[in-house]
């Protein structure tokens, strides 16, 4: 039940979230924004060859991450899930280590940035192949059910474009038939690189696909972290309680080009982006918390300084790390020493 902050300001439907949690969500969003800026900046400076931002997805990710139960749930994110990664415990230093491809990156500089892995935190390693990870997420959920680990669920995220893939279909269907504890979160930002939603599917909402699998589907405002929290929390709770899978669609937007390799001016107008910018979830949520009296202007400034410092420190610390050694190219192909031609004592 929503409780109200005693101090000044508008009443806030906080969905049971404490002040601390609300501020954590805002901080996550601010940190995302800062890290995104940093990635694109480093790319322009020629320091890193590639970056990709979550701008426009900050709210849905901060909200969804707040619904994640650390130490129990598993997150199977996609490459645009900076805020989910941060929200479940990954650090700015890990993100920067990946951007700089340093030895402190968990993939040892092998993967593109934004291809998260963190076994300790329950963040599954992902590839670049759109929707390939969805089947794995289902497998993790199947393992939970197999071992009768009630109270655990999987949060699997994709963009709306990914739902066109056959593997997405097979994943959702498998999870439905086997009633597995999993939530398919679809961050619908209207675009898949240059392909708009209407060239990707004929339905207005990705959530409209849920009944085809006999599943509940929900649509939430992906520009509101609280709305996203409510929708994802409900779905994860259902899954944890044995109620099976569901689809949650969060309507958001991609403010930036797809990545530093893309130039979105070729396929969408500046005006539409400006229209969407007016709804920018980051300043909006800051305002919501200020108006509800959860924070004041000073605290807001403080938070921004904090995340800037955190980003700066992480940048410096990561950049100071060495590259992986050339020898590391040959390790962890399979367990032990690996050669396709084996030599034995003869």
């Amino acid at each position, binding site marked *: 039940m929503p409780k109200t902050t005693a101090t000044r300001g508008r009443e806030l439907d906080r969905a049971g979230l404490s002040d601390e949690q609300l501020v954590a969500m805002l901080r996550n969003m601010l940190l995302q924004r800062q890290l995104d800026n940093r990635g694109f900046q480093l790319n322009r400076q020629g320091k890193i060859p590639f970056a990709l931002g979550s701008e426009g997805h900050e709210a849905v990710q901060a909200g969804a991450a707040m619904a994640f139960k650390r130490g129990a749930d598993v997150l199977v994110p996609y490459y645009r899930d900076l805020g989910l990664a941060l929200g479940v415990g990954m650090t700015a230093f890990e993100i920067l280590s990946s951007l700089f491809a340093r030895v402190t990156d*968990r993939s040892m500089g092998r*993967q593109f940035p934004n291809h998260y892995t963190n076994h300790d935190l329950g963040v599954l390693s992902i590839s670049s192949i759109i929707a*390939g990870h969805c*089947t*794995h997420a*289902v497998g993790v959920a199947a393992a939970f059910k*197999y071992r009768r680990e009630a109270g655990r669920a999987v949060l699997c995220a994709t963009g709306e474009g990914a739902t066109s893939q*056959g593997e997405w279909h097979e994943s959702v*269907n498998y999870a439905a038939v086997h009633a597995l504890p999993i939530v398919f979160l679809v961050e619908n930002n209207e675009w898949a690189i240059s392909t708009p939603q209407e060239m990707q599917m004929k339905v207005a909402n990705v959530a409209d696909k849920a009944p085809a699998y006999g599943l509940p589907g929900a649509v939430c405002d992906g520009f509101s972290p609280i709305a996203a929290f409510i929708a994802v929390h409900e779905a994860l709770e259902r899954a944890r309680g044995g109620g099976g899978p569901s689809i949650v669609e969060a309507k958001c937007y991609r403010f930036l080009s797809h990545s530093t390799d893309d130039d979105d001016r070729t396929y969408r107008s500046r005006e539409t982006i400006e229209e969407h910018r007016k709804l920018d979830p980051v300043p909006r949520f800051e305002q919501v918390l200020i108006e509800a009296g959860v924070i004041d202007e000073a605290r807001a400034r403080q938070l921004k300084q904090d995340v800037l410092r955190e980003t700066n420190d992480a940048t410096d610390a990561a950049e100071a790390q060495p590259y992986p050694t050339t020898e590391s190219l040959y390790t962890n192909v399979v367990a032990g020493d690996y050669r396709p031609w084996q030599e034995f*004592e003869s």
Partner: protein
Amino acid sequence: MTATTQQQTGTTVMTNVEAVRTTLHDALVRDDRVLIMGEDVGARGNVFLITKGFLEEFGPERIVDTPLAEASIVGVAIGMAMEGLRPIAEIQFADFIYPAFNQIVGEAAKTRYRSNGDYTCPMVIRTPYGGGVRGALSHSVSIEALFYHVPGLTILAPSTPADIKGLLNAAIECPDPVLFLEHKKTYRSVKGEVPGGYYTIPIGKADVKKAGTDVTVVSYGYNAHQALDAANRLESDGVSVEVIDLRSIRPMDKTTILDSVRKTRKLLIIHEDNKFGGIGAEISAMVAEEALFDLDAPVRRLAGPDVPAMGYALPLEEEFLISTDEMVQAMRDMAKF
């Protein structure tokens, strides 16, 4: 057969299909992280009856009938493996593994590498392959060459019941993904002694099924049995052929092949799979790199023709497959060279 961990409790004679079945059964009994998933593995007991009775014994949680969707069969198994289970996924016929190619090549084979070991993918994909059973275009193919180029994958193709048991156990133990190929034609036609108790055979180790001095023959699957027959036939003619059964396609056993070739100085590779780009190519190339001057004759590959697959009509199947007579002839020609 080279058995490493072997608790001998007598041997039993069984067919290849029985060897797969009992090994799977024992694995289910031994390790509750092991489960079997695929199309029609439950009540039907798999289309070759390999898992017959398993559903009743182990229940639907461990013997999982999946929807008809190969990418998810493999992909879901990957997720299970990443989360600590030991799934054994079945592809009903090797011809239907193509839709799962992305999951095998793009995902399973790269899981450990891309995460630098943060996650691993210990799983087995079993599938029946090969022809000679009137399976026509789409129930007869060999698939090993489509996968053997892929780092991170292990590919096994044992041909005898004892090797099947030892290598299937090794595959289930293996901390990385294994593609386990079972030649359909050997399922019921091949019988052999199988040691009791649990044992594994080292992955990557070939087996000299018959020693010889004049020609080295490298083969695997059903062809290995024919090659052995052919070699035995030639004994009376005074032609001594060494027959190596690869058993393991990736990794492959350099030592056994080179030792043999350096002795016989002649190499004949036999496989049912199409010739161009088949695994015989890599074997020949390795030998041309390492032992070129030890060769007294050109390396020869006796392999399937470069057409998509054998046909349904008997003459087309027979024409595609390598007969034992053709093997005898090729061995004789090599010996004479």
